[in-house]
C-alpha cells in the first residue's frame, strides 16, 4: 500500500523526486526579525501522501500559506505542475487545482451543509452577477453540482445533515465537511493543515481512510500533522521542518529514527508509557 522509489539519489533534505508535482526553490519569509520559513529546495512527489511534520513555530503553516498564495514570500520561486505560482493570488491557485484546508476549520456555519458543498464547485456560470438573475442559465449546472455534492456527502457520511446549518455540526463533522467541500472542485493536489486536530481518536480512522481514498483516486496529498501514529500509518514520504528549515526527509520509519528529528520534535518517550517515566506505576522486572 505504501509507495516507494520516490526519490532520486541519496535521501537528504531537498532530495529530487522522480515525479514532482511541486518544486520549490529558495523560499523564504521573515516576520519582523524572525525567519519563519527558509526552504532551500523541496520537491513534493506526485500521486502519493506526503506528511509535513515539525514542532510548532517551525514554519509549516506559513509554508502552506506561501505555497497556496495566502501569503507572499520575501524570496523564492515554486512551480505547480510545471507552472510558476509565485505572485499568483490564493483564489487563482485554488482554481489551478491546488486546494487547501485550514487548521481552524472554516466550515461556513451560516450556510447549510449542502450549500457549503455547492460553494466548492468550480466553473459555475450562476456565480456571474448577470447570469445569476436568470435561473434558466444556471439551473442545469446546479443540478449537476448537487448530484456530485450528495455523492460526496454520502461518502463522508454527512448526507442526513445536508440541510442543517454547518454551525450545528460537531468539530469532527466540520473537518469532514471541509475535506468533502475541498474535493468538489476535483483538485490535483489537496493540502490539509492538521486534519486530525480536535478529532476523536475513533473518528481518526475514518478520516485516514478518506485520505487514503484520495490517493487511490490519483490525487496528491500534502498534510501537516502532529499525530505520529497517523503519519506512520498513511504517509509515503515525510518532510521534517524545524525553525523554518527542512531538517530531514524520507520514508516514515527512516525519518522517525533520525536523531535530529527525535531531539527537535518526537521526544525520546515516543513509544514508552508516561506512567512509567513519571514513576507512577512500577512494572514487574524484565519489562521496559
Amino acid at each position: 500500500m505504501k509507495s516507494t522509489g520516490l526519490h532520486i539519489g541519496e535521501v537528504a533534505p531537498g532530495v529530487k523526486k522522480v515525479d514532482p508535482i511541486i518544486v520549490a526553490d529558495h523560499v523564504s519569509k521573515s516576520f519582523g526579525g524572525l525567519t519563519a520559513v527558509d526552504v532551500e529546495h523541496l520537491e513534493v512527489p506526485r500521486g502519493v501522501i506526503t506528511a509535513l511534520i515539525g514542532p510548532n513555530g517551525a514554519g509549516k503553516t506559513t509554508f502552506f500559506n506561501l505555497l497556496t498564495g495566502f501569503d507572499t514570500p520575501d524570496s523564492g520561486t515554486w512551480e505547480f505542475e510545471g507552472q510558476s505560482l509565485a505572485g499568483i493570488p490564493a483564489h487563482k491557485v485554488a482554481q489551478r487545482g491546488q486546494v487547501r484546508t485550514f487548521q481552524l476549520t472554516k466550515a461556513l456555519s451560516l450556510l447549510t451543509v449542502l450549500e457549503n458543498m455547492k460553494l466548492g464547485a468550480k466553473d459555475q456560470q450562476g456565480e456571474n452577477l448577470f447570469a445569476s438573475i436568470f435561473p434558466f442559465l444556471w439551473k442545469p449546472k446546479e443540478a449537476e453540482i448537487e448530484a456530485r455534492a450528495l455523492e460526496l456527502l454520502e461518502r463522508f457520511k454527512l448526507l442526513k445533515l445536508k440541510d442543517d446549518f454547518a454551525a450545528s455540526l460537531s468539530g469532527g463533522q466540520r473537518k469532514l465537511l471541509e475535506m468533502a467541500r475541498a474535493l468538489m472542485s476535483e483538485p490535483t493536489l489537496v493540502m490539509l493543515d492538521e486534519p486530525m486536530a480536535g478529532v476523536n481518536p475513533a473518528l481518526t480512522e475514518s478520516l485516514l481512510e478518506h485520505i487514503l481514498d484520495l490517493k487511490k483516486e490519483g490525487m496528491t496529498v500534502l498534510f501537516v500533522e502532529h499525530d505520529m501514529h497517523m503519519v506512520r500509518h498513511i504517509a509515503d514520504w515525510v518532510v521534517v521542518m524545524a525553525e523554518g528549515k527542512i531538517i530531514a526527509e524520507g520514508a516514515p520509519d527512516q525519518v522517525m529514527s533520525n536523531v535530529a528529528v527525535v531531539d527537535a520534535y518526537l521526544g525520546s518517550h515516543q513509544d514508552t508509557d508516561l506512567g512509567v517515566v513519571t514513576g507512577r506505576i512500577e512494572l514487574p522486572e524484565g519489562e521496559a
Partner: protein
Amino acid sequence: MAEQDGPVVEISDLVAGYLPGVNILEGCNLTAAKGELIGIIGPNGAGKSTLLKAMFGQVNVRGGSMKLMGEDITGLKANELVARGVGMVPQNNNVFPSLTIEENLEMGVYQDPSKLDEGMTTVTELFSELKPRLKQRAGSLSGGERQMVAMGRALMMNPSVLLLDEPSAGLSPVRQDEAFIRVSEINKAGVTTVMVEQNARRCLQICDRAYVLDQGKDAYTGTGRELLNDPRVIELYLGSLGA
C-alpha cells in the same frame, strides 16, 4: 495514597448547556479526592470542556450540584470560585500577551495579593525554566510555553483544585510529553488536578482515575490503568493505532 478528608470536588447529576433549551451535560457525576489526578476523556460534543467550564462558572447550570471541599459552589461566578480555591487553565487565550511572564503570574493573586511572594517562590521552583525569563513578554512565547505560564498563574493562589482544559492541544509530540510530565509533577507536589484531554492514551497513562464522558453523562469510570486496558475504551477512543 490520597488522604480521605472527604472529596475535594463532588459533582452530582449536573445538567448544563449554553443555548436555551439545549443541554450538553445531562446528569454528569464526578468526584476528586485530595491529591488525585483525574482525567476526563471522550468524543467531541460529549461535554468534556463543558464540564470543566461548569466547574469554573462559565456555563449555565440547570440541574444538579457542585461542591468544593464540602461547600456548595453551584451557580457561583468565576471570580468567586477563584477566591474559594479553584484554579483554571484554559486551552486558548490563556495569557495576557502584552504583559511579561512575571506580570502574568502576578495577575494570578489579584484576588489576594498577600499570597504573591509565596506563590512566586512555589511557581518559579516548579517551573524553573521560567525563572530567568520573567521579564519576557508573554506574547512572544510559543503555545507550550504559554500554557506553562498559564498553569503557573493558576497555581499562584495555591488552589484546592487545578482545572486543565486539553493541555496537550496543538503541541508537537515532544512538547506534549513534556506537558503531561509537568502535570504529573504538579500533581505529585500535592495539587488535586482535573484534566480534560483529547489525547486519551497519554492522559490515562498518568492519571489516578478517569471518567469517560459520552453524550453528556459519565459513561464509565475507573483507574487510569483499568481504562487503558478496557476493550470498550480501546475500541472507542484509543483505536487500534493507540499505544
